[in-house]
């Protein structure tokens, strides 16, 4: 029994994957959910593998989620945190890559502030590379766990209407969701002020809502993005207060929806800015399920990428039950 549509060496983004490959990851994540419910949350699958979490941007939740995924598969993990880019003091990304290769690391999970950094690393080392977020480009495991959460609730993804709300311009989570959902046949919309949407958004094949009320009327689920304080300081919006008044997802706004909307948020939340507390903690919020699914999805990705070597498989034929 072998899985169709192998993933290749790396997971750099959802734009490069086919619908079958995405489906494979989501299906593989299902049995991994169960492992996190056991008393002994560990399987020996990646025993002896070395995985480095190379985080150039501070991120507790994503890194911890990956760490759990790695340890529950019995891998050995090492965390490397660095705050520099290639131009600041410290090692360049190229030299970091070469050093990792020299230490015979099996897999690298990288988060970096520059778009394209994960691909840059993947092209230079033989280890598997998993993109945990590169600049404003993609955050594929987040997109996958969002889709898994949606699929758990609706039973399927095609035809589901998902509105991604907030700072799409600077969001790698938004991009990964757009590519992934479209490949799985969902209908995707974005909603936010035009100053926070890419100028070319109309060419992405998504519906654009300029008012949150319209998005709420249309959608089956809302994926609410975190609004970052820096955007206000950089002048993209005048104030967080105004953002909340005009675009915030509140209980009153949701009550006017024709149906119960599923609420997702990649976290961490700015309560009272893009999302009100009673929505975040409300009955239709699946934000905590997203976190649980995150570990399962990451375990699935690690499992699928750490593929065996087919040439040894030939030698091993005959070993069976």
């Amino acid at each position: 029994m072998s899985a169709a549509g192998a993933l290749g060496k790396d997971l750099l983004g959802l734009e490069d994957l086919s619908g079958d490959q995405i489906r494979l990851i989501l299906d593989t994540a299902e049995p991994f959910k169960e492992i996190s419910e056991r008393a002994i949350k560990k399987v020996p699958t990646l025993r002896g593998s070395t995985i480095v979490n190379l985080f150039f941007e501070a991120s507790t939740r994503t890194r911890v989620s990956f760490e759990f995924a790695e340890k529950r598969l019995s891998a050995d993990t090492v965390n490397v945190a660095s705050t520099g880019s290639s131009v600041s003091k410290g090692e360049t990304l190229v030299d970091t890559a070469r050093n990792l290769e020299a230490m015979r690391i099996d897999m690298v999970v990288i988060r970096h502030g520059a778009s394209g950094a994960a691909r840059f690393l993947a092209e230079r080392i033989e280890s598997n590379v998993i993109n945990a977020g590169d600049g404003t480009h993609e955050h594929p495991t987040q997109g996958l766990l969002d889709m898994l959460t949606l699929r758990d609730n609706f039973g399927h993804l095609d035809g589901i209407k998902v509105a991604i709300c907030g700072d799409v311009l600077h969001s790698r989570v938004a991009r990964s969701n757009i590519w992934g959902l479209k490949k799985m046949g969902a209908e995707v919309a974005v909603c936010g002020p035009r100053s926070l949407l890419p100028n070319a958004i109309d060419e992405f094949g998504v519906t654009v809502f300029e008012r949150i009320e319209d998005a709420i009327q249309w959608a089956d689920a809302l994926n609410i993005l975190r609004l970052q304080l820096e955007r206000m300081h950089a002048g993209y919006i005048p104030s967080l207060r105004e953002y909340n008044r005009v675009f915030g997802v509140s209980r009153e706004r949701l009550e006017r929806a024709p149906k119960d909307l599923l609420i997702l948020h990649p976290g961490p939340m700015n309560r009272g800015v893009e999302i009100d507390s009673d929505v975040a903690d409300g009955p239709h919020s699946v934000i905590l399920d997203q976190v649980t699914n995150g570990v399962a999805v990451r375990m699935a990705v690690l499992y699928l990428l750490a593929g065996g070597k087919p040439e040894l498989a030939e030698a091993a034929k005959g070993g069976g039950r």
Partner: protein
Amino acid sequence: MPSRQTTVLDARAMDRVLRRMADEIVEHNDGTDDLIIVGIQRRGVQLARRIVACIADREKVDVPSGALDITLYRDDLQTVGPRPVVGPTDLPWAIDGKHVVIVDDVLYTGRTVRAALDELADFGRPKRIGLAVLVDRGGRELPIQPDVVGKTVDIGDGERIDVLVDELDGKDAVVVAATGDA
């Protein structure tokens, strides 16, 4: 090219064997107390359900059952090539202090059973673990022996033995075919 297949057990024969296996399991356990039947994915699961049904029929007791997917515990994951599909594991009952009987369709090298033993150890500490297999084809690579055997079949290199179950394959049978055939 038509596949040359020899049927070792047809549906009726298979049913008789399973009934006998169910009786043996109950006999070894001196009854149905503390018994849990766990099938190994995939076809072991269907056979386990049949055995549970036989026991219910005979003893009028519903013995607990579960399913075990051992893919993540395989010892050959590094060499097997593209990742095998992982099936569901479902052990709804605590296994501490119980008599767990592992059910599988074909026993060959014994590595699958070893993986199942490792996995069960992560769930708890049964009082006793037994092994029931429909077909024993010899060729052990590990010191593992079954407690209950449906049929012992001697086949050569270049042949394989397959168990078919109605739920997955459309019919019940045990067949021998040359390897290289589908």
